[in-house]
């Protein structure tokens, strides 16, 4: 039991990935682990492979070589235990849907048939909205929410799925400083019980909230997030760290 508990949440070994019809690997030699309730940042230049790495972890892409284990199994088998929070733009705002409809997507399963969700799913969705302090928005139309509200609701959706790991793709993009602080307080609270892997371009955010980060630029390099500043980041951009 102890051994099972001590097992890393995410274990990536000698991973490489190449998109079809490309001559070069998008990622290669990737190795890292996430243990316990770690909050890990993913930093790197645009096109460096951050989103590709997230998609590999979610099982949407298959590695060319190497292995990925999440909760001790391949991502395609365990991704239901992962709560993915995309940038809020991924939800189609033109669809007439309430906040509750969006959160209930986290309760969708292969056996979801019929027009309505069972009461248990409705209860879990409401509990997730309460945990993210958005229960008062449940009946509101998704398209009327601000960027900050949308991010909190998407986190509620991940929580409604009873996720054991949160994967966030630039959750603070496009929201004001006040809402960003609220969002980070929420993530801090959730991090007491959940490991978080978060893509971010914000050095201050990463150095303040995380001990460790991964620099993703075709390969992955582990960096000490606590001492991160703009100068050290600049040197990473120019590949001066080895």
């Amino acid at each position, binding site marked *: 039991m102890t051994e099972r508990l001590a097992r890393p949440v995410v274990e990536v070994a000698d991973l490489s990935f190449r998109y079809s019809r490309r001559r070069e690997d998008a990622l290669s030699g990737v190795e890292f682990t996430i243990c316990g309730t770690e909050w890990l940042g993913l930093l790197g230049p645009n096109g460096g492979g951050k989103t590709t790495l997230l998609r590999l972890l*979610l099982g*949407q892409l298959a590695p060319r070589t190497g292995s990925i284990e999440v909760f001790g199994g391949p991502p395609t088998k365990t*991704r*239901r235990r*992962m709560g*993915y929070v*995309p940038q809020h733009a*991924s*939800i*189609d705002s*033109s*669809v*007439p*849907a*309430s906040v509750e*409809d*969006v959160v209930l*997507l*986290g309760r*969708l*399963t*292969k056996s*979801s*048939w*019929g*027009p*309505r*969700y069972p009461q248990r799913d409705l209860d879990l969705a409401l509990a997730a909205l309460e945990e993210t302090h958005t229960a008062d928005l449940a009946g*509101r*139309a*998704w398209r009327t929410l601000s960027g900050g509200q949308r991010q909190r609701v998407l986190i509620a*959706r991940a929580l409604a*799925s009873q996720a054991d790991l949160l994967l966030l793709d630039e959750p603070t993009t496009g929201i004001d400083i006040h809402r960003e602080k609220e969002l980070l307080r929420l993530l801090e609270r959730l991090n007491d019980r959940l490991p978080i892997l978060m893509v971010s371009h914000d050095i201050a955010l990463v150095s303040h909230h995380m001990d460790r980060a991964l620099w993703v630029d075709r390969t992955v390099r582990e960096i000490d997030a606590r001492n991160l500043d703009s100068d050290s980041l600049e040197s990473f951009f120019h590949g001066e760290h080895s």
Partner: protein
Amino acid sequence: MNQFFTDAAVNPFLWSGLAAGLLASISCGIVGPYVVTRRLLFLAGALAHIAIGGVGAAIYLSTVHPSFFGWLEPIHGGLAAALISAPVLAVLKHRVKERLDTVVGALWAVGMSVGILLIKITPGYHTELMSYLFGNISFVTRRDLVFLALLSGVVILIATVFHRRFLALCLDSEQAELRGIPVLATDIVLFLLIAATVIVLTQIVGLILVIALLSLPAAIGTRLSTRLGPSMAVTFGVSALVTTLPRIAVYGTPISPEAAIVLATAGLYLLVVFRRRSDER
């Protein structure tokens, strides 16, 4: 308007036309919001035009081989062609990443060409194609009504069973996939529903105008509602209204009822758009 009700007492076709409009409104109300929110109108248009190939085949077979295919109505051929091409279009939508419109446009043109070719080589003169193209709401038979009712029943049943999955695809297909929903298979079912609805609506306003009836009531419904379920109810209401009142209003005038239906729908849509714009100011 009075003349409509006076004549309706002795002409059952007038009531059949209204009943057909109401039946078509059910499919339109359910499927229209999915089509509009998923931005599938071009693909729905392709389904309608590819169906001409099936209409042509049905006319050809029933004329040239009446002993085997005498029972075949043009609408049966149209439905078969639309149902066969629906999964093909769904697969293309998922697999073709570039120039999807070119590929779909080619299928659209090929379907129409096959239909026109088959009708051209069929002996005799055939008015069925005209009623398929421009609608024939004034001559809906009892048999047509039974066909429409059956098709509407199937659409209701499937949409009820699949509603949560369809909504998930409308909102966030990536999340649906991550939650284990087979996105392509679900889209194939949705495309089959669209195909059935296109054929139902073709019976009312004809192929030329079918896209207007599939899109405009749903555009109104999705604008006026904050959830997909209620937007279907509004879409049904709008469809029922526009397939009934304009038909009665232009009765006895030279105005085509099919054109009146579409123009009334477009007018209502513009009214809703401008009303909402002025509310937002």
